[in-house]
């Protein structure tokens, strides 16, 4: 419909970031509606791109009309279009959520800069998603990462230190990726993904290609915080402002996982990554370790957001495991889980943000009797938790179902077992949480023990219903509805989109 939507998807948020700064300096209140409107446009563009891909097949958009080996090309197939929809929709909803939470957590004068960097981060993420040029992907990766460092650093407590650690790790990751680009370029003379796909198979025996592949894999593994390289993630995402945690947890690692899939199965052919060198075997074990490690650590945490961070590390393990079993069900599960995990993580971090906004509580043991004060929020928390654990009507069940099927198809019984074991660990995390919230001694009794009858009234007042404002509750409702609907309609999503993303030969 809109012929230029691939370019507009990047240009609109980029220009809007600059305009947001200028307009914000004149009138501060304009920023929020402007950012929401911009991201709304991005959602429209990404759906439009998806429509075009479904109707006409792969889009090869040439920027400035330059032919591929020379110019930069945006290559969009079902996989990118799908990821672009996830990124733009989730960031749109996060933007709606941001208003109250940012007003509380940030100094008023910083809000303009916050929204400017927020838009730059989304520009970077969308750029990585739709670009078909490996160097261009590097540039967008760094735009997204730099914006991420800045956004995390404005958080509380140790946020600056966590952000610095993230800068060091993230730079190593990005530099490794860049080295990979350099090695590939020095033997092929091309940066275009489609061009490289035809050039590389003749060079598969070359050691340079192996080195390049290794650099790509390690670089991306740092960026998505795959198990042994995850150390920066828990601190960075815990201390960041609620809005930022929700955005980066939901989108950044997912986009990284997309780049990993793209490199393994488009840039290099499945034959190379599966049979020529045992990448998938190694990744499978690393992912399995990530699932178990994330689960165990999540049980041990007391900070709600930090618990979610370790669950996120386990979820990344699921996605990578789905990719590494290298068959149709496993891959379908991985792509489906990218979407589901984005929705679930955004929802859980929204809830953490809403609880922090209303009560200032961060630790799970402080959540006692919270269901009396915020019943709707806690109901949403329970639904999201059921989804993360993988209980049938919710979306988390369906992606895990496919992942387990994939592991069984690949005759990797141990991985199938670990997937279930990790789900049980996550279940323990949330059962503990539910127990703390619902089954703590009732406040009235506690009050009766501690105080005389006069303070009784006060206590009751303290525990009367007090939900977060509508601008926070509506995004939470949308995400919870998403969890249920994406679960119910997952069959349709798979048959309409995901089945086309599976690489040939699976």
């Amino acid at each position: 419909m809109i012929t230029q939507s691939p370019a507009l998807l990047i240009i609109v948020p980029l220009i809007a970031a600059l305009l947001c700064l200028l307009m914000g300096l004149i009138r501060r209140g304009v920023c929020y509606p402007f950012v929401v409107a911009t991201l709304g446009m991005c959602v429209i563009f990404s759906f439009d791109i998806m429509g075009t891909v479904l109707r006409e097949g792969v889009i090869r958009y040439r920027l400035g009309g330059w032919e591929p080996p020379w110019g930069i090309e945006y290559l969009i197939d079902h996989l990118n279009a799908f990821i672009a929809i996830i990124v733009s929709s989730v960031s749109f909803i996060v933007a709606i959520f941001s208003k109250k939470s940012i007003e509380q957590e940030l100094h008023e004068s910083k809000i303009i800069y916050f929204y400017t960097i927020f838009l730059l981060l989304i520009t970077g993420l969308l750029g990585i998603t739709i670009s078909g040029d490996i160097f261009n992907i590097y540039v967008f990766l760094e735009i997204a990462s730099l914006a991420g460092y800045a956004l995390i650093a404005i958080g509380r407590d140790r946020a600056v230190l966590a952000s610095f650690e993230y800068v060091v790790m993230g730079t190593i990751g990005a530099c490794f990726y860049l080295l990979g680009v350099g090695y590939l370029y020095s033997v092929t003379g091309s940066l275009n993904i489609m061009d490289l796909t035809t050039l590389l198979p003749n060079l598969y025996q070359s050691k340079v290609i192996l080195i390049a592949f290794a650099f790509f894999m390690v670089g991306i593994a740092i960026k998505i915080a795959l198990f042994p390289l995850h150390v920066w993630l828990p601190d960075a995402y815990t201390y960041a402002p609620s809005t930022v945690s929700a955005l980066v947890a939901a989108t950044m690692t997912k986009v990284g996982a997309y780049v990993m899939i793209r490199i393994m199965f488009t840039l290099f052919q499945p034959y190379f990554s599966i049979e020529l060198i045992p990448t998938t075997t190694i990744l499978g074990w690393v992912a399995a370790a990530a699932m178990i490690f994330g689960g165990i650590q999540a049980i041990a945490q007391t900070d709600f957001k930090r618990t979610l961070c370790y669950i996120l590390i386990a979820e990344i393990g699921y996605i990578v495991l789905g990719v590494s079993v290298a068959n149709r069900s496993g891959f379908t599960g991985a792509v489906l889980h990218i979407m589901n995990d984005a929705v679930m993580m955004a929802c859980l971090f929204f809830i953490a943000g809403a609880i922090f906004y209303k009560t200032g509580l961060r630790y799970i043991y402080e959540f006692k009797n919270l269901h009396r004060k915020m019943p709707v929020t806690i109901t949403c928390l329970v639904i999201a938790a059921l989804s993360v654990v993988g209980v049938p009507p919710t979306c988390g069940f369906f992606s895990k179902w496919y992942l387990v099927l994939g592991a069984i198809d690949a005759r990797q019984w141990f991985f199938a077992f670990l997937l279930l074991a990790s789900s049980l660990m996550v279940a323990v995390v949330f059962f503990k949480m539910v127990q703390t919230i619902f089954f703590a001694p009732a406040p009235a009794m506690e009050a009766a023990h501690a105080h005389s009858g006069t303070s009784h009234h006060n206590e009751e007042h303290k525990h009367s219903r007090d939900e977060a404002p509508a601008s926070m509750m509506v995004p939470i409702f949308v995400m919870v509805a998403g969890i249920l609907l994406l679960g119910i309609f997952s069959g349709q999503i798979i048959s309409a989109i995901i089945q086309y993303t599976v690489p040939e030969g699976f």
Partner: protein
Amino acid sequence: MDTAQFIIGKFNYWVYIVLMMIGFYAMIAKRNLVKKVVGMNIFQTAIILFFISTSSKSGATIPIIQNAHGDAAGHAINVAQYANPLPHVLMLTAIVVMVSTFGVALALLIMVNRDYGTFEEDEIYETLEVLQLKK
């Protein structure tokens, strides 16, 4: 003889690897945050050297066809006979990215110093432990 040839002939690549390892070591092993940032910069600069090395050729011409001097126009079409400009252009972009990373890292260091009054990692963690105990 062959080994000497291998070392001298690929001199710039050896320098790139040595520089990269120095930078990498500083980023991982140094306990001072400023040294980490310096290591990061050395690491990134090594990558620039690598890219530029891949495009260098002795005795090649510049990649311009129109209005070239004499024979050069003929040479500039043959890949083996002109110096590839693309790695330089890529590195211009990469330098911009690296400068921004450097800037963000320095800005963070200023904030760290404001919060803790030091750049030494050990002292920062000591301060943090004291804060934790007070809670």
